[in-house]
């Protein structure tokens, strides 16, 4: 059954009706109209739908909305207001990481969560944090480079 749900998304309180098992992805996209978070596979294989729940990167396509009722959700539309997110966005543009861009919301969310937890990631940290995010355009070389630039920017 549908039920009234209240979530804190990007610092704002949002109330809406949705079945409790409905994945957060579709709440964001189809109920709240926040289309920056993307649908890629629906089975947590590609990472296009990555958002932050309490600062951790999660796949919103398999996350029931009821599971985040009392949590803080951050999406690509707001990640630039976090220090790590802003650095990642800047580094992404400086390195010209992006091609089609469809997966990049998820890539940026994953990278921002990585840098928030591990300010100076090495290659294996980057592999571990980013291997869940597929980019069909093949921007991986630049993603790695941009994460390192963002990390260095943090140090300076």
């Amino acid at each position, binding site marked *: 059954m549908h039920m009234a749900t209240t979530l804190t998304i990007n610092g704002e309180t949002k109330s809406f009706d949705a079945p409790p098992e409905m994945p957060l992805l579709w709440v964001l996209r189809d109920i709240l109209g*926040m*289309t920056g978070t993307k*649908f*890629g596979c629906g089975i947590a294989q590609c990472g296009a739908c990555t958002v932050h729940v309490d600062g951790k990167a999660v796949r919103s396509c398999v996350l029931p909305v009821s599971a985040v009722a009392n949590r803080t959700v951050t999406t690509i539309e707001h*990640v630039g207001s976090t220090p790590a997110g802003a650095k990642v966005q800047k580094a992404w543009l400086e390195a010209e990481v992006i091609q089609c861009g469809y997966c990049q919301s998820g890539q940026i969310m994953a990278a921002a969560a990585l840098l928030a937890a591990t300010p100076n990631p090495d290659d294996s940290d980057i592999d571990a944090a980013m291997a869940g995010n597929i980019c069909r355009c*093949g921007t991986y070389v630049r993603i790695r480079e941009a994460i390192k630039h963002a990390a260095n920017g943090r140090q300076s």
Partner: protein
Amino acid sequence: MNAHNNLSRRSLLTGGLATGFLLAFHLPLRAAVNEPVQPRDTTEGKFAPNAFIRIDETGRTVLMMPQVEMGQGTYTSISAVLAEELDADWSKVEVQHAPPNDKLYGNPTFGLQVTGNSNSIRAWWLPLRQAGATARAMLVQAAASQWGVEPSSCTAAKGEVAHEASGRKLAYGALALAAQGQTPPKDVALKDPKDFVIIGQPLKRLDTPDKVNGKAVYGIDAILPGMKFATVAACPVFGGKVGKVDDSAAIKLPGVRKVVVLDDMVAVIGDHMWAAKQGLEALKIEWNEGPNAEITTKDIWDDLRKASQKDGAVAKSDGDIAKALASGDRFEAAYELPFLAHASMEPINATVHVRPDACEIWTGTQIMTRVQSEAAKAAGLPVDKVIVNNHLLGGGFGRKLEPDMVIAAVKIARQVDYPVKVVWTREEDIQHDVYRPVYRDQITASLVDGKVAGWKYKVAGSAVLARWLPPAFQKGIDIDAIDAAVDAPYDFANFHVEYVRAEPLSVPTGFWRGVGPNNNVFAVECAMDELARKAGKDPIEFRKSMLTKNPRMLAVLSQVAEKSGWGQKLPPRVGRGVCVQPSFASFIATVVEAEIDDIGEITLRRVTSVVDTGIAVNPDTVKAQIEGGLIFGLTAALYGEITIDKGRVQQSNFHDYRMMRINETPKIEVIVVKSGEAPGGIGEAGVNAGPPALRNAIYAATGVALRRLPIDRKLLAAGKKA
């Protein structure tokens, strides 16, 4: 017999650049969260000298994009070409998607508004420079007449006209109205490339700032007032139809609005994608699977191997091939490539609102006008009643050269009076693609004195062009399937290319990034490596000895040898492989270095590519396209195969149709050579390079001469020899 059907993509050239005035549609590339797509701003451009340029009184410079942006950077490169000759202020340039109109925006190579075949820059290089230069001349004329001086005494730069003698200056915005009244000059001089100030600079992409913050709008992001959401299940067997549908459980689910039954698919419309998906799962559908329900991949390969034994239509024949093959050391091999799905990250989708008098579409397509005409048929409306709003594409790779998703969405939307967004699940997207065809490429060659004396190459496979652009399929030859076979870079005195059309049972085929050259470059470069070994020569030296008449190819090959450390000692079971390719009028040499462990698993260590694409409009985009193309091709070589059982595609999502990930990605170095030649194509070229270079690296490391893709690890375990 010497026969050379002079068929090439260039022979398709139809129509010239049409110019004329057009309402300046304003279709923003971004939309505010929570707000529907903004209606069009139909304000007329103040200075609109042709279909591409709009300058208003404030100097705002809007460029209309005839080609679509799917990641290849074309919006920035096309803008650079226009802005260069316009002498626009680059910092003020904005881009808009062009509406469907073949006359105004048709790709000069095809006469259709199509983005594909890596030819956006190649096709538009001169027409858009002329468009920019003409507009600039009109702005100069306007300023000169205002000042009462000769236009030739004025100069233009960065969005301003100046009269140096008197020190006067006017910005383009201030000249916009007056320029609109000027007669366009007939012949305008184009700049000497040495005077370029925008082209060749490392330009920041115009489309990416909104791609880091969720504001960029793809087709799948369209939001309309009152819109509902649908998802579909098509008959899993190709060609099958819907039999009986029991929707009694589905229709009772909360949020489910309607079940739409079409000829070959069923759609559920709901308040959101989740409701639509739940509804679809609750349906009981009986399919009439039809005659294809028993087809397997093996049947298709049996057919293709049999068909490939036939003589083909001769595409090119130089010298005396029969005589050449009768002497020397003979070599024969067949190379086989699998079906592949596109798997763009944005699953196929279309949003449609069918009203009594019109049909409006929001999608991301590579074929604007074909979508419009096919939608008109599906809606039962005249073409001019179909409005197509194009968007950024979340990857195209050829999948969005097809209108099928729009046709289906129109048929669904006809059943309701509200707008409906139809989104394919990843499973439906992969199982109802238009697949890169299976190919079988046979090469017969003879070696005399360590060089190729005779080269006979027969390509067998689907003729995608025969379906997609029937007039281009002539004399039994698919010019796409043999594109890089007839254009082989080497100096072969006796050279013969044939094509056998062989359509796979039931499986629809289409263009896939890299297109025809994917099969040609693979076969040619694998064969060249095997021939080099037969001749006892180093693979690069062997190739060089037959590139003496191809200085651009020779130069990139020499450079890649140096940059990749070719010839330097490697550990056991590590190899380097090379690929040279003339595809899309670019000259590229690539070396892949790979390690193969004892159980046959492959680690990519390093890739080096040297690229001569002529004038690189945006050199960083050239690099990015090669990097990405290499990964796209290497992904296919390592993992890509769609197989069929009981008439159905067996793969369904990224767990069984694998993609390369960041942890598998090697170091990639791309060197873009400076050149003054006309620009070549770049979006697909990297895809061609990866598979043969990797295969040749494996050959060097293990001695196993693989002749099929994807790579079969079982053949590579320690101790195996080909």
